Structures are given as C-alpha cells and as structure tokens.
C-alpha cells in the first residue's frame, strides 16, 4: 500500500524535485530564482501574493507577523535569557524586581523553538514559491486556493493532519523534556530556587559521582525496581493467561457472567482501587482490626516500620495484579479466539492430551502474539509510579538505608521525591537522564529486534 502511495505522489508531481537536490549549487538556484521566489525569500508570503495566491500569502504573512510580534515583545529577551539565566536578583521585601531563572530557562527553550518553527515555515514558504514558479515556467497557472485546499486533503493529507499533533506534542512534551535535560546542567534546586539566581554548571553530575549516599540508594532502588518489574509482569501475565484459559474452557457455562467480575476490577479507576486498598491495609483498617479482635498481633502492612518492607512489596504485587490482570485476560482471550479451531481438532485426532495442546499450540501462539505486549507491560511496570505513590504516600521506611526514599520506592518515585517534594531539580534531572540512558538502550535494543518492528511492512 505504501509503495502505491509513494508512486501516486511521484506520478502527480513528476517535476517536483527537492530544491536542495535539484540545485546542488546554491548560487545556481539563486540565479534561477524568478522574482516571485525572491519575494518569498525576502518576505514570507510575498511570493504567494506575487503569484496571486492571496489567502495563502496572507496566511504566511500573518504567521510572520505573529512571530515578529512575539519576538519583539518578549522573544528576543528570552533567546538571550537562556544563556544568562538571570542577572538581577529580586528582592521581594524591598520591592526590587529581578529575574526568575527557572522561568527564563523554559521561556528560552520556548523562544528557540519558535525561532526554529519560523525558519521551517520560511523554508516551506520558499519551497511553495519555487513550486509555483515551476508551474508558471511550464505554462500552467499557480495553484488556486481551492486547489491548495484539495491538495491538503489529498497529497498533503499527512502534513495537514500531523501539523497540529506535532505542535502540541512539541510544546507540551518536547519543550518540557528539553527543559529537564538542560536543568541537569544547571545548579537549580535545593537552596538555589527563586528568588535566588541559578547558573549553568556541572554541579549535579559532580554530586552524582561524588556523594556516596546517592550511589548507594540508586543501587538499592534499581535492584528492587528490576525485581518488581520482572515479577509483577510475570505474575500478571501468568494469572491473566490462566484466567482467560479458564473462562475459555468448554465446560464453563455463562462465561460472560464470570467474566464480569474481572472486568469490574478493570473498569474501576486505578487510583480508587489503590486508595481503597490503602485504607484496607492501614494500621487501623479492617484486616488489622479483625486480627486484633481475634487476639492476634496486628501486622505492619504499609506503615513505615522496617518489617513492613516485604509486606508492602507483596501487597504492591498483589494490588497491581488485581488491577492489571483483567486487561491481560481480555487481551489473551482475544488472542485465544484467533487460534484456528482446526489446529485443536487436528491435534485431538492425533491423540494429543489437553496439556500437550496447551504446551504445543496455545502457549507458543500466545507467547508469540504477546511479546510486544509483554515488553510494553514491562516498561510500564518499570515506571509504575502510581502504585506506591498512592499506597505509601508520606511513608518513609528504612530511612537510614535510603536517601530521601522508601524501601518500596521505584526509581520513578525516588525521582519524584527528589525533584518535586524536595526541589532538588538539577540532581533529579541528572538521575533521570541516567535512568533514561539505561532504559532506552535496553528497550530500544529489544524493540528493534522484536518481530513487530522488523515485519512492519511484511504484514501488509
């Protein structure tokens, strides 16, 4: 299908070659450029107006105007601000105004982003003018507004529909992440927060290497984090698969009825389940009150006692299983229904037992089909922020062994403690870059090797 789409694109625009490739020599391009193109090079949108494309020209012009207005009112200041991160400290008591380093950093990133966007737009505008120029040279008319609209709905459909998502993702996701990466190279955080001024430095990295408490905590947390991710993924997977198999059994009547219970658990918003379980396992909660009424010692489930470490970890696994297995079950049952019944019939005729059928047909098939799912589940569980955030919020156990973390915290919870609760922005950002380096290499490697990625085009 894609080949076809590419072909149509080429068929319809045989004369359109990328300017950079067609005119390898830049000067040659400039020599060739007719006045319309020159107009666009000098003023965004002017070329379009020259070719009579009024609406398009005005659109480009107004983009330029908006950008110019932005840069004049604040953008230019912000472009520079990212380098200084503030030069004048504010004194709130004396009413002396000053700079806010954090705001300057983010606005700087934003301004540079807008600058890049403006350049890209300008480039697109020149390309568009070149396109029209070529049409004129060939004796055709430049595209009318209606033709442009039609092209946007057809040839350029991908550009039309992707432009909005690209902008929103850039502003709401890429800019914040770039900001975070940059913060790792400043000294923001701890004592140096507004109104104090920050500066560029490698402070955070020096601390990361030099302060042994950070390293020790990191080691302990990552061990638990990997254990957690592996075990919870496996538990959920095995439990979910067996659930699906159970409900798929021939002798189960009203399987829709039985299936309703796991779906109920799946449908309840996760945070309600987690908070509910926190109440249930709390020190004065129902389980402990039953235990004490029965004359037994109550148990430290989630409290900050050292003995709660394994209880809390176990409860975490349990609650996560309660929340997540139904979805695995649903997926697995969807996959199971895809296995052709012939396979089973044939194997039954050959005298295979149901156990053999499971081992030789069901399991390999399900495993093969769900490998990508397993990977994404693993990554999701690795970064499962919610579970211990909701269940052990404000609980710090085994404080002495960990630095600003609790013994059930995953790396992501530790990062939250460091950067959101304790304002250690730069150290938090540096650690998250380290984590990112680890997880991304791992999962990219796995993903690249996974069948789904390689076979993308073969499936079609």
């Amino acid at each position, binding site marked *: 299908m894609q080949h076809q789409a590419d072909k149509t694109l080429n068929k319809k625009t045989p004369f359109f070659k990328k300017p950079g490739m067609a005119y390898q020599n830049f000067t040659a391009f400039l020599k060739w450029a007719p006045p319309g193109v020159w107009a666009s090079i000098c003023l965004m949108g002017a070329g379009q107006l020259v070719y009579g494309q009024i609406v398009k020209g005005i659109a480009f012009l107004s983009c330029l105007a908006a950008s110019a207005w932005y840069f004049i009112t604040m953008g230019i200041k912000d472009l520079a601000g990212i380098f200084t991160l503030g030069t004048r400290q504010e004194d709130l008591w004396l009413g002396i105004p000053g700079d806010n380093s954090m705001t300057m950093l983010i606005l700087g990133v934003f301004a540079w982003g807008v600058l890049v966007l403006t350049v890209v737009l300008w480039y697109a505008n020149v390309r568009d003018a070149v396109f029209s120029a070529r049409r004129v040279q060939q004796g055709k008319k430049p595209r009318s507004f209606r033709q442009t609209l039609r092209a946007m709905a057809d040839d350029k459909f991908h550009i039309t529909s992707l432009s909005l998502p690209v902008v929103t993702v850039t502003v709401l996701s890429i800019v914040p992440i770039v900001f975070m990466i940059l913060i790792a190279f400043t000294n923001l955080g701890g004592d140096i927060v507004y109104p104090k001024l920050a500066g560029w430095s490698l402070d955070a990295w020096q601390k990361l290497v030099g302060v042994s408490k950070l390293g020790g905590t990191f080691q302990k947390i990552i061990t638990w984090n990997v254990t957690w991710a592996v075990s919870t993924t496996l538990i959920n997977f095995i439990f979910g698969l067996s659930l699906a198999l159970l409900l798929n059994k021939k002798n189960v009547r009203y399987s829709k009825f039985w299936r309703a219970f796991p779906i109920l658990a799946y449908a309840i918003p996760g945070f309600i389940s987690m908070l509910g379980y926190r109440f249930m396992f709390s020190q004065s909660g129902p389980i402990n009150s039953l235990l*004490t009424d029965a004359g037994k010692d109550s148990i430290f489930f989630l409290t900050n006692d050292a003995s709660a470490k394994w209880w809390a970890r176990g409860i975490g696994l349990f609650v996560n299983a309660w929340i997540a297995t139904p979805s695995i079950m649903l997926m697995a049952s969807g996959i199971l229904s895809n296995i052709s019944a012939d396979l089973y019939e044939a194997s039954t005729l050959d005298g295979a037992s149901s156990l053999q059928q499971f081992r030789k047909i069901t399991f390999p098939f399900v495993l093969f089909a769900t490998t990508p799912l397993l990977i994404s589940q693993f990554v999701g569980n690795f970064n499962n922020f919610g579970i211990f955030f909701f269940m052990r919020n404000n609980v710090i156990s085994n404080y*002495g062994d960990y630095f600003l973390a609790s013994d059930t915290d995953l790396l992501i919870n530790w990062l939250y403690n460091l950067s959101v609760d304790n304002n250690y922005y730069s150290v938090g950002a540096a650690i998250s870059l380290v984590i990112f380096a680890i997880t991304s290499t791992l999962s990219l490697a796995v993903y690249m090797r996974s069948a789904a990625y390689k076979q993308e085009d073969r499936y079609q």
Partner: protein
Amino acid sequence: MKKLCLYFLVMFLALSFIVPAMAESEMYQRVMSRFHGELEQGAVVQVLENATSIELGYAQQLIDAFNAAYQGLGVSAKIMDIDQYSDLATDGPYGYGPDVWYQANDILMKYATKQHLLPLPIFDLECYPHTPRDAWDAYKMVMYDEPFFCGVPINVQSGMLFYIESMLPDDWQTQWDLNQNGMPDFFETFTALYAYSKAVQENGGTTKYGYLDDLVDVYFSFGYLFTGGAYVFGSDDTDPADIGLAKGDAAKCASMLRQWAALMNNTEALDKAFASAAYSYLAQGTMLCTITTPDVKQMFVRAMINTGSWTREEAEADLKMIPVPRLPKSYDLTGGPWQDTITDMDNLTTQTIMMGGMNGFGISAYTQCPNASLAFIQFAASFPQVMERNRMLGISPARGDAAAEIGKDDATVQMMFDNLDNNLIYIMPAINEMSQLWTPGESFLIDLCTDAFRSSRGEPELYTTIEQIQAALERMVQQILDAIFTLS
C-alpha cells in the same frame, strides 16, 4: 545650675525619643514603607485558613465579622478555597496563592526565609503589647543584618492531655488521688499513668487502654528528649550545623517511649494516622486519654456526639483538656512505686517540656493589598476574635489578656500560656532546615517503638540498653545533617 538641670532634662527627653527611633533603622523603614496604613480600595483579601477551622465554621465566622466591621471602608475578605498546605514558592510568583495565610510558625517561616512572606510592622499592632516576646520570636528572622518578624501569633499549639471525665474509673477518688487535690494521680505524673494503664490493660476497666497515642509523632514524642536537655539546633535554634537531639539525657528519656510502646503493645501507636483515629477511640472508650493539640478539641466533641451518648453541651462539659503529666527524674517509668512520684512530686519528677508551635497569620509577599491584609490580621488577632476562636475551636490564645479571661473558667488555657512564658513549650525553630527534621525523627521513633514487638516476631531486640538508644539518636542526628547538607 538650673540651666544644667534643664539641659539634662532636655537631653534625657531627646534621648528617649531618639532611642526608639533608632530601633527603627533606615532599612526597617524601607522594608515597612508599603504598610502606610491606607487601605487599598476595592481589595478583597484572600485568606487561607486551616482545614479544621473551615470544617468547624470558625473561618467563615471570622470573614463575616471582618466584612461587617469593614463595611464602607472599601475592603473585604474571602476564604481562599485552596489546600491548606499551599506551596507559596511556586504559586506566588505566578500570581496565585493567598494574601493572608494562617499556619504553624515552622511552615510560615519556611517561606519567610526565602522572602515569600512579608515582614510585618508588629510594633504598631494592637496585639503587640498583649502577646509575650517568646511568641513573637517564633516568627523572627534576620535579614540585612537586622531582625524582622514575619507573622502575628494567634494561638499556642502544644501537646495537651485529653480525656472524658465520665470515663474515669469509679474508684479514682479513693485509689488514685493520694494527694487529695481533686486531680487523678495518673494525670499528674507519667509514672502513675503508666501504672494505671498497666492495671487497666491487665485487669480491665472502663476503657481498654489507659493512655494510648501515636508514639512515632515527632511533634509529641520529642518532648521527652527536650525534657532531658536535648535541643534541635544550637545557638538559639539558628545553627543547623549543631543538632543537639542526642545531647543531655536524651537517650534515657527516649527509653521511656520504648517502655510505653511495650506496654501499649498496639501497632496503631506506630502510625501517625492514629491522630485521626483518636477522636473516635476516645469517644468509644478504647482509651482513657491521649495527647494532641488543642485546636482539634471540637473534633473530639463531634466524635462524642456521633456515638449518640452525648449531646453537644454534655460533650463539651465532659471532655477535659489538661497539661501533660510530669516526667520522673529517674527517666524510668517503672523505677520505684508510682505513689512516691505523687507524694514527693517536686523531688522525683520534673515538668515535661513539649514541642510546640505558634500558629498565626503571615502576609504573602505577592499580595497586592498589604494594608488591607494587615487590617485583616489586626482584626483576627483582636481580643474578641481570639476569644471566639477559643470558643469555636478550643485553641489556647497567644494573647495574654485573652488567656487570662478564658483562664477564669478554664485553668488549662492560662497554664498553657504560662508554660510558654516559663519555657516549658519548645517552639519549633524558625529556620528553613527544620523541614529536614521530621522524617529522620519519625524513622528513629518507629525503629525505637517497634523494638517492643521484635521479640514476639522472633527478631533480636535492638534497643535494650541506653547505649544502643544513644547510638540510634546519633545516627538520627547524622541523617538530619545528611539531609540538610548532602545536596546543598
């Protein structure tokens, strides 16, 4: 001669004018220049009160009274309906957050040290002469080499003992009032309270426990350490490098907490959530008494009404709030017969120092209406409003005249006020580093109190000797230092 006398008189008069004027330095005047007294016309003061005061309706009463009093003066006030632990440092610069904020002094000062709260011209306030110096000092900080005060104290917060009179054992007057002073002995010394609790837990009584509490709450339990001579920060609580929590007899005092944990033998005592369970438990008779702060008094009353056995009036009369018992000088709750601590109280026991806070009002540095805000605080700190706050919430006022007035009917409030004056309340330090105390402190207390459960779980006990506790205290101090200095 006459001339000389006159000359001296003039000199004296001039000096007496100059001296106060010198106290108000040029810097002071520059900082205070925004408080020129002219109310910002049309200003609506956003007031952030705490959740208990909103829930029990006092906050609305205060706002209504202010609006009635300032009708026609062009200003009004409004409850700000954001979370009581708003983060002024992130909200303020972007124009959000309250104008006036009621909080404990440690929280207010955490923001004040970074200039997010304004210093106030306290010497000009009506409540200034009525409020003891110690109360003001809870808001003191040094900036530009000068002291400034960033809050107006309203009420003293410190641990008080709560009990319900009708739940006292029937025989207390014959069995538990050796000194015949009309106060049960077990509310007078912790040694007696320990003995009574033990008797109740072993033989049963009107309640299941005598004294039950969350021993792991730093705020209440560190009082034991302070009684033994420990302190938080050195140089009058201004030097974060000198942490004195392991100093003096702190370890011996901490061993009493372990004794309590062993006696209570209740794991709920190891969870701070107990504080909110306490309301129901006291009303249901799970325990005879517990320690908490006066501002939640009405929560107990409500829980009592909920059980159905009390009407509001009955509950208010039946619920008692008294100062915490005295601690034995031996720092051992089981050392010697409890009767001795009553008969020879002055020699064998010492008054318990409790950690305390000063709740009060501060003004955000981001406010557009500092003068209206100050007017509001003046109003809220006025005698009638403080009296009303006491009536509706049960707080202990920081104003001397209010404390004296309430003290006529309720001796406790006067006692609390005196405790503050006599340094029996250890006010939370007003420096930023204080925020790093809580978690290591709680972690230490949990470790210590869990020790009582270790043997039944088959684990070796860790804190059987004073030396072990001392080592644990020193570890805690190191952790606090780490938290303060590792990443700074």
